[in-house]
């Protein structure tokens, strides 16, 4: 077996960098999931304890533990795309 090329190593490193980024994903009919290194604060900059590595932020407005999601989107039949929607460029 030949040794991995420099390009391969660069590629592998780039992949690691990607994993180190924060990723925010809107899920269909549900919350925004936040993964990776992030800091959650209130508007005065005080940290809000996330308590887990992946968190769900409410985007339906009905959670009783905002900014976190508490599953209320199901009861209120919240509908939204699992991605970007309705956005216009001028």
């Amino acid at each position, binding site marked *: 077996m030949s040794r991995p090329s420099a390009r391969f190593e660069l590629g592998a490193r780039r992949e690691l960098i990607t994993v180190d980024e924060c990723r925010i994903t809107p*899920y*269909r009919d*549900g*919350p925004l*999931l936040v993964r990776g290194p992030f800091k959650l604060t209130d508007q005065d900059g005080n940290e809000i304890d996330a*308590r*887990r*590595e*992946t*968190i*769900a932020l409410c985007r339906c407005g009905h*959670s*009783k*533990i905002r900014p*976190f*999601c*508490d*599953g*209320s989107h*199901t*009861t209120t039949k919240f509908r939204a795309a*699992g991605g970007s929607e309705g956005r216009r460029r001028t």
Partner: protein
Amino acid sequence: MSLPDPRGPLSRHLLEHFVQSPHEFSSPSPEGDPLGSDDFHLALYLCYELHYRGLTGVSEAWEWNPSQIAFRQSLEVRFEDALRSRIPVESSNGDIATRLRAVTETDSHPSLADYMRFKSTIEQFKEFVVHRSAYQLKEADPHSWVIPRLSGRAKAALVEIQADEYGSGSAERIHARLFANTMDALELDSDYGAYVDVIPGVSLATVNLMSMFGLNRRLRGATVGHLAVFEMTSSIPNRKYASALRRLGANGATDFFDEHVEADAVHEMIALHDMAAALAEDEPALTGDILFGARALVDLDAAFASHLMSSWAAEQSSLYTSDASAPLSL
């Protein structure tokens, strides 16, 4: 786990053999309602327990003993057949996320969580916790059997959920530990298996379902469907259970339920979209079983809930006793 008392021919037969060193034995043909019989489900629960924490005084070599496995399979065949004959075969149209959501909406049983929230007594809440201890003290373990049977996206998603169930590296945050804390706060015995003698078949069946799915590779789709619906139907009831405890003044016992409101709102999305939908896309042949696992969970949970509600409506304990004239108290 220490050995329970037998409840009928199947569990008696098994316990008589288990206390001896492993040997060949022939099995009686399984009797009783495969969806809820106390004897049937205790016997099956004991077989599965050999794969989890083991049974006190029972040789560990029984785990892969061919007679034990044959006996277990004879129960599994009847259990699975009974489930499949109740659950309609799904045509494979429509996207899986929508169809799984629809499964959770077919759940028409009277809401146990609403009853608990507004009406339950502390004794009834403690009974509920005792029933659930058959699973929660090994929470997440049955679904972990499926990890080596998945690959790619579905595997990564399942492990993301399980890591959180197992406390993301801190033993005191393992969900099974949080449940044990709740039991302690309610002055219940949180030792693993402490209450197996009083847990009826209808409750053990809900746990046996997950063990059967998890231990049979061919049922990996059903495990994934089961976990998806489990996570999808968790946050809202857990908020109600936490609120029941606050109403009853048991504020020190709420952590497990509060944690699940928040955690399962995360798990729901991962389980539904990243795990179940990804698996259906990568292995379309498993779609039917994903839905089967989902419906089987809803079915058995409904039977469990109506057992509790009807026992309490009749002002009786919902726990198992071999002597109906001796009321149980926890």
